[in-house]
């Protein structure tokens, strides 16, 4: 394999691309060209961003060596906060006033999410609670707050500008996909091109070392969990716009799937390693499977089983390869190799 390809695309991503190719080849004879017909692509483009944005939120904490179980609850709280502001708009408000309320709604949502992030960050960074424990608690707390305030009910009917976030399109590109792309791009740049991104991934490999190099890891953790919550809030807005309603219990089944998607995408569950590109590829793989299942008239639940099966198979192949590596190396060792000058 050419070195340059390996370096720029990465081993995990090459594997995911191979998986993608295999899937397309395997599914094509079954569903024909329906999979890539405009209608199929359109429906995928509207479905993928929901799980995609939530997975991006999960990715941020996984990379830092943590975990955020509260992302779904945060997304719903953000949506409900936004909904509350929109509902407070006077009847028949239009023009600048309505725009102000809409902007205020999104800000309220982001603010509510940031508060959850601050709470998570404080618990994890300053009180040194393990991330899984802290976010397990805030998950229940935030969901409970949303249920308590809404009495479990659904808030619906939002102005067109908000619905545009979920069902509109810009130059033919669905808005949710556009949002997902923008957030993915921004996170990609943030993680690889900024000092904060470097600190975040280094925290995932060795938090002690980061602290000893004079970086305030507590403040960094605070920012990491606020960032995750803000991404979750955007996911919340997209869900709210797509369903034209907000509720304390939307998207709950996605929680564990986001972790599954991240791990499939090569994000190390112990932190430090992984790329946004890998996650995006993994999401495309998962979405393709889901759409193929729909086209084949299979139960939507079988999709879930296949997703889990794919993750297990990929891990199994990696484990078998690791087991075989010493064996293969042993077989290869006696063959003398001419020393080639490195270019």
């Amino acid at each position, binding site marked *: 394999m050419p070195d340059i390809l390996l370096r720029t695309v990465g081993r995990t991503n090459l594997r995911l691309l191979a998986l993608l190719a295999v899937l397309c080849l395997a599914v094509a004879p079954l569903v024909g060209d329906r999979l890539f017909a405009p209608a199929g692509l359109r429906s995928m483009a509207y479905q993928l961003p929901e799980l995609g944005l939530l997975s991006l939120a999960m990715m941020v904490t996984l990379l830092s060596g943590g975990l955020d179980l509260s992302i779904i609850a945060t997304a719903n709280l953000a949506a409900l906060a936004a909904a509350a502001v929109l509902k407070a708009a006077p009847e028949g408000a239009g023009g600048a006033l309505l725009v102000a309320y809409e902007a205020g709604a999104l800000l309220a949502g982001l603010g509510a999410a940031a508060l959850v992030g601050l*709470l998570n960050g404080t618990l994890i960074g300053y009180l040194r609670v393990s991330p899984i424990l802290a976010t397990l608690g805030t998950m*229940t707390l935030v969901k409970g707050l949303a249920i308590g305030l809404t009495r479990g009910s659904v808030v619906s009917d939002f102005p067109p500008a908000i619905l545009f976030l979920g069902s509109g399109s810009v130059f033919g590109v669905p808005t949710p996909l556009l949002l997902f792309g923008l957030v993915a791009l921004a996170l990609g740049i943030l993680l690889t091109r900024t000092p904060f991104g470097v600190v975040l991934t280094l925290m995932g490999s060795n938090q002690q070392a980061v602290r000893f190099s004079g970086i305030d890891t507590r403040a960094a953790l605070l920012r990491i969990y606020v960032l995750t919550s803000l991404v979750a809030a955007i996911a919340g807005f997209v869900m709210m716009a797509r369903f034209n309603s907000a509720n304390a219990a939307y998207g709950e*089944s996605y929680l*564990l799937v986001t*972790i599954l998607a991240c791990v499939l995408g090569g994000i190390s569950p112990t932190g430090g390693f992984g790329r946004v590109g890998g996650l995006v590829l993994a999401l495309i793989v998962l979405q393709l499977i889901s759409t193929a299942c729909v086209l084949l008239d299979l139960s939507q639940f079988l999709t879930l089983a296949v*997703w889990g099966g794919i993750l297990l198979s990929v891990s199994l192949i990696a*484990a078998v390869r690791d087991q075989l590596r010493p064996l293969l190396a042993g077989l290869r060792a006696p063959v003398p190799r001419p020393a080639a000058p490195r270019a």
Partner: protein
Amino acid sequence: MRNASRGGRAPQELWLGLVVLGMVVVLTALRPNFLSVQNVMEMMNATAFNGILVSGLLVVLIAGGIDISFAAVASVAQYAALTVANATGAGWGEIVAIAGAIGLGLGLLNGILVSTLGIASIIVTIATQSVIYGILLTVTRGQDIFTLPAWFGDGVDLFVTTDAKGNVYAISLQIWGLVLAFASAWFLLNRTRFGRQVFALGGNPEAARRVGFGTTRLNLLVYGYMGLVAGLASLVQAQYTQSVSPTALVGRELEVVAAAVLGGASLDGGHGSVLGAILGLALVVIMKNGLALLGVSSYWTDFFTGLVIVAAVAGMAARARRRWHDSPGLA
């Protein structure tokens, strides 16, 4: 991060015990019927399923792993056992055997995968949960079973007595199942060689391996036990709700994890006790029951549960940090 949840065992339980005792005193003062036999029994009945799972999960957590798939395992065991009972007229012995075997089998599968895949057990069991749950819902089409055999509805009550007012008291299947589960977890962890090895494995997996414990064999035992417990708990739950639903249990995994860690079981492995797990469970159950008795709307239950979890983990972390600073040579 490692030290955050690593409490000394006795103090954690003492602290939790005091909080639970405080809640009991306050609730009894406000609502005298809180400590009535009827209410205490109802609390135990309602929490039996979660409690039995907590007793199994405790073993997994102490071994340094985690299991997310047990609710899906329980759903399969429940559905299969009672489908067979409905179709063939099988009795208690058969359904216990079926549910236990299915739970054990799926648990062993988790154990094999955790040992061989080389990825975190949380990831492995999230994947197996998806597979098990996905297949279950596909096969059953998500349909509940409402008609159950009559003998199943009757349950297995022990020491049935009737008081002067005509109220019937009995040690129900739920209560003795709960007690048995914690008793066997205690025996397993504290009175068997296997138990010591589980603590050692969770405390330092590499050391356990070098000492020569078969870590694969231990993982099989730990996850197999969790699966077995989940299979049996599923019957207790079905008997309590008098129905079998493939969708009702999945989604409650994290509740069970929360109860176990509230009781001081460390997510890093090597720490945890049966008494702590019982207290963690009691804390949540008593609070939920207390809120209901005090007339707080059930919409707010989750909020208060979350508040208690956040406060408890923050308190635990604060105590762990104090010990960290106090101990010479560590800071």
